[in-house]
């Protein structure tokens, strides 16, 4: 349904502009497992950023832990660089309620105090429940009630809209 590569181009251009506006040099990419990591890898190529990508699994930071329990597919968070004083680009595939972003921000600050954090998302599907906005967006998507958008990958990356069961 969507040309992913074009969406990533749009996202990369928006991110370039956001980084320039903030005069953020030598930014570090941090992707949220799993889709955010795939997008962060593409952005690293597009923006020609050196250095490794950080990965976050926010399972231990979720606000619905006592309601839904532990995600059994939890993966290690791995930030192979010092965050202290760095400009951080936080990357996720889909921005919806903002709760994942809230959890990711909390986790980032347990690793250090970044100079700033920019939020880059492939798709903003609306439906925010927290005061969180993206700094760079690949596409805004309007969904009908009960619909969900999901990124699958990593090769090829594919966005699909599905009816929630």
């Amino acid at each position, binding site marked *: 349904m969507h040309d992913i590569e074009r969406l990533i181009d749009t996202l990369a251009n928006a991110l370039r502009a956001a980084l320039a506006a903030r005069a953020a040099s030598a930014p570090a990419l941090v992707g949220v497992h799993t889709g955010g990591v795939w997008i962060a890898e593409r952005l690293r190529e597009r923006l020609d950023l050196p250095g490794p990508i950080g990965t976050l699994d926010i399972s231990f*930071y979720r606000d619905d*832990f006592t309601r839904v*329990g*532990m995600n*059994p597919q*939890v*993966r*290690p968070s791995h930030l192979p660089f010092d965050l202290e004083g760095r400009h951080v680009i936080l990357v996720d595939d889909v921005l919806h309620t903002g709760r994942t972003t809230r959890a990711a921000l*909390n986790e980032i600050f*347990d690793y250090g105090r970044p100079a700033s954090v920019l939020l880059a998302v492939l798709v903003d599907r609306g439906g925010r429940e927290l005061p969180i906005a993206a700094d760079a967006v690949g596409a805004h998507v309007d969904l009908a009630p009960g619909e969900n958008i999901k990124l699958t990958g990593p090769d090829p990356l594919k966005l699909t809209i599905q009816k929630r069961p």
Partner: protein
Amino acid sequence: MNPASIQLDAQGRLKHFLTIEGLKRQHLIDILDTAESLTGVAERRVKKLPTLRGKTVANLFFESSTRTRTTFELAAKRLSADVLTVNIATSSTSKGETLLDTVRNIEAMQCDMFVVRHAASGAAEFIARHVRPHIAVLNAGDGRHAHPTQAMLDMLTIRRHKGPAFQDLRVAIVGDILHSRVARSDIHALNVLGCANVRVVAPRTLLPPEVGTLGVQVFHDLDQGLRDVDVVIMLRLQRERMSGALLPSAQEYYQQYGLTEERLAVARPDAIVMHPGPINRGVEMASAVVDGPRSVILEQVTNGIAVRMAVMSITLGNQSSPAEDA
């Protein structure tokens, strides 16, 4: 109901952790994977996760323990829980009734999890049957029965060194199998994970009568038992066993079953040596092995924190909140 079923909810998810028996491979893999993702927490600026913020964990230690108690305590703290450690002197007269009284009192302090260490087999299960539905119970060692978090930290240590293919490993457990809850839980965990070559090495007097049903090969000779193994798990020999009729003398035991660098030569060159602690140096193994290049004993302690964090977050996450019960 058996202990295996009481620790699972209607969906088959772990809500208490009492024994390895009755668990499926996927339960153990989930614990190991979750623990693996928690091993990096200690290297961060903030060595803490917010997962159990606002939860209270009560460590009920009816039997003394340093390593297990402190690592459970640290695990709870690294998950942001509040921790209460109660050392309850064991009296020979302690009965189910007094145990239940203790439980009711701690329950009245609005705790969310009990970590139980008790000299009586089945104590943690007894408590799990009697607590309010939202409370998770973890077995930190009950009599000769089980020590499931020790087994899981042993499995994590093995997997981190040898990879996930347990079916290809040869594992020898050496020493006092008869009195060892660690040995029982390790054997069950290795069986569930598909390890087909589990050996126990011990004198006849230190083997349980049901050893034939445990899915292990029995060796009475250390050199035969250690041949080509990938993993050696040494057990603590309690000194009081030597005063009884079970063993002739410490020297004789050490000659026959004590692990030295020379004895270890028949194992695979990359074999690892484990011990649940506390170690009797010079009784079950030589200091040179304890401190040697193949020893992963201190890694076991570190891995114990991650495993206990994993079990705590999995079981408490699977407990329905009190509000939802109402």
